């Protein structure tokens, strides 16, 4: 995907990135554990919980998806492993770090703390769904302009939180933004730049909502 972006004092920059994913055949372990269990009489059972497969239909980044999931599969794992949307990151897997933040029906949630099967009929937006027609979302551009990241691992979650914040009740001050962004931690501590990026978008006249 090629995005057009602009950045301070650096003019137009166009970078082509290609998804490495395409290099490898996606073949996430399909093994049917229950079937294997029957072939293995020595196994006493009880270690692997019985699986319940569930069909779930939802829209992800505007595309209808029908997936069969284990009933206990988190939305994060479903996005990453079933739909190959690896932009949402697994940091702590406990709902404490915010790296997995996505939007469900316009509200931000930790996708590691919700089961995929609970989202029948929902509209889900991930970091991959923010750019439109080859143009980055203003929040994505602002994060680039302000160096709102270092290692980049928390960045998708930060940006999804930041975009959701635009349509939430949040005061005008930097401290208000900090309060609203407190669920997303960044070990590189790019916090000042993250707040600056968000404030630029909030003050800007561009229509920065989704």
């Amino acid at each position, binding site marked *: 995907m090629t995005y057009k972006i602009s950045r301070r004092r650096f003019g137009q920059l166009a970078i082509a*990135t290609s998804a490495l994913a395409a290099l490898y055949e996606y*073949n996430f372990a399909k093994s049917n554990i229950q079937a294997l269990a029957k072939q293995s009489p020595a196994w006493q059972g009880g270690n692997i919980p019985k699986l319940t497969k569930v069909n779930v239909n939802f829209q992800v980044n505007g595309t209808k998806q029908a997936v069969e999931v284990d009933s206990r599969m988190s939305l994060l794992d479903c996005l990453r492993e079933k739909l190959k949307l690896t932009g949402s990151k697994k940091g702590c897997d406990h709902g*404490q770090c915010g790296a997995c933040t996505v939007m469900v029906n316009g509200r931000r949630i930790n996708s590691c703390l919700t089961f995929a099967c609970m989202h029948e009929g929902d509209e889900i937006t991930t*970091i991959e769904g923010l750019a439109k027609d080859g143009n980055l979302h203003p929040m994505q551009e602002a994060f680039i302009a302000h160096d709102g990241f270092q290692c980049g691992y928390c960045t998708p979650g930060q940006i999804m939180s930041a975009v959701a914040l635009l349509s939430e009740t949040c005061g005008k001050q930097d401290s208000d933004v900090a309060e609203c962004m407190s669920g997303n931690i960044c070990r590189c*501590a790019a916090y*000042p730049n993250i707040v600056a990026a968000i404030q630029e978008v909030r003050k800007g006249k561009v229509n920065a909502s989704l």
Partner: protein
Amino acid sequence: MGSVGKDIAHDSAVGHVSGESIYIDDMAFAKNELIVDFYASPVANGKIVSIDLTRASNVPGIVGLYTHKDIEGHNKFGPIIADEYLLAEEKVEFIGQPIVVIAGETRKAVLAARKVIDVKIDVLEPTLTIDQSIARKQYLAEPRFIKRGDVDAGFAEADHILEGRFISGGQDHFYLEGQAAIVYPGEYDNLVVHSSTQHPSEVQEVIAHVLGLQQNQVVCITKRMGGGFGGKECQATHPACMASLVAHKTKRPARIVYNKDDDMSFTGGRHPFQNDYKVGFTKDGVITALKTDLYTNGGAANDLSTAVLGRAMTHADNAYFIANAHINGYACKTNLPPNTAFRGFGGPQGVVNIENIMEEIALFLGKDPFDVRSANCYGIEERNTTPYGQIVYNNLLPALLKKVAETSDYKNRLEAVKKFNQTSKTHLKGISITPVKFGISFTTKFLNQANAMVLIYKDGTVLVSTGATEMGQGANTKIRQLVADEFAIDPNMVIMAPTATDKNNNTSATAASAATDLNGSAAVDACVKIRQRLAECAANYLSSDGAGISPSPSHIVFADGNVFDKRRPDKKLTFAEIVSAAYHERINLGERGFYATPGIDFNWKTGVGQPFLYYTQGAACSEVLIDRFTGELKVVRADLWMDIGKSINPGIDRGQITGAYIQGMGWVTTEELRRSEDGVLLSHSPTTYKIPNVQDMPRVFNVDLFDNDKNDVNIKGSKAVGEPPFLLAISVWTAVKQAIASVSKEAAQKLKLPATNEEIIMCMATSKKSALASAKQTKA
């Protein structure tokens, strides 16, 4: 017009904001790929009696279970001392030590097997603390010494002598991306390893060593890390080895990714220190002698502990001239996971020791600590030699101290803080300035080398690969700028290849803040060689066609994407045109560059040397606000000044400075690794381990770069920046100490690091003038 010195965007900016950047666990699953995990020792110290894998091997989907007996090469390795086992043999020495490697078709199967592996261990009493290690005489290596002058004479000369103990705690790296690797087996037992590591060459070397392969059979590739901070310098090796063992045995791709809780519990972090000191000083607070014993908790294996201790010792002076110094270092062996590199690498622990001593002297004399610091600061012409014999050239420390005091309005704010503390019944304030002088270079001489490969393609685009790994610090971006400027082309014409051992051999870790210094210099070396060849080609080309000049490479200029002869500046070739011409003239358009830091060495037998190429310097003023009833702490304002020479990318460097300071704030305030009596880490996730979040950043945060164009020893006059600003956060701790001292000197003297809310309230609660006591008085 070059790009060096400009704020160009991070190399991976677009990928990071769009979610397209690929980290290890984002790589698509390959056909037949196996999930790898391991059974870890649940006890800190014990003898293995038996390992029963029967039930685990019957779990459906389990493909392989491997113990140390399955290792065909060597089970023992280590970056300095070969004292680590990949898989435990007779004994286990820390919680999390791998015993059995598990390979399965699915994560569920692997986790199920992990639960039913039956290892019987005779549990022994663990050694967890430095005191226990000293009592049991358990050390990782021989003690080290740095001695200068005559401490006894210095103490005799002193007006006052203070003795004390200072304790600083550990820190978890908390890189958001856990340790991870994927290994693809190839022909003839060859392996391609993708690892989230700061040190691909070490991963390659240790895998070959463990599996009994030649090093040229293993390629390690690192595209990027989701944070490293030192935690992936040595300890990325173990997961990569375990996945390699599986790939080697099964001939199937193998993936290992540590979850956050395992990662925090099983891998080492920053070294805790316990330091005893005796300091002599004049009535004006000038130190006449210092004797200090630095004890560090190295954990169960040396890892990098002796090197970390060495840096703590060479930073035990920080910014201060100590005429008579005796610095001893002891690396304690305990039953914690081996502690390892962490941003600052012992430097912060050495520096905070002397900064605490500065506070103690000031408290004793009733002086402003800033004045005590200024009185002891390294001089320009005299009093400018470190205890290990290196002269502090280009010393900006006095200027930095003066500057930060001015711009932070320190003296006036100090008075305001004093008044506040006299009147407020609910809160306390503290304000403090601390400097930093951080030595740049690996203290192990041979590590200070780098190679780079620069390839120019026929369309004039450039591909660069070096040994530098990218963990967000922007090394790739800076190297890209350096290369672009050598050819006077747009940085967009330059791409940094993933770090890989088949392109750059025998590389050093991306560490010691020196990735750009070393690898950037090597890349420029390659560029200079190619540019010379291009200039020769251009000289011939541009002097032909009746131009009336003879070919002269020294007249060839590369500027703004063009190449021309100074004498005929109207006739310009684009860079792509001269590259194409050179190709057709059969001129080599690829080159290897090399760099070895000149003139550095250190002798640990004598404790004397020239270990650093230069020092990165800075100073910070921090003000804290403390709730007297809860101990809650806020950093209300921070003013930072850093001398980083001529910055290659000020935007990226500014990010390093603010990020390092905030990470340092975490070390000195909220981040506490709390363990049970058995050594189980209790704070092993963000629910119980508090790293700074966005609300913890200083409410007023001023960051400035100090002008310095005199650092002529490093690439483009720049200075390394990754670690030094971490130490500026020590001013937060000293500010807390001052705030508490305003209530009770006695309480302030007890303060440990980190100054958590609990630590602060407990310190104050034991003082007679505690908040609770004064609250009672207020009520009465």
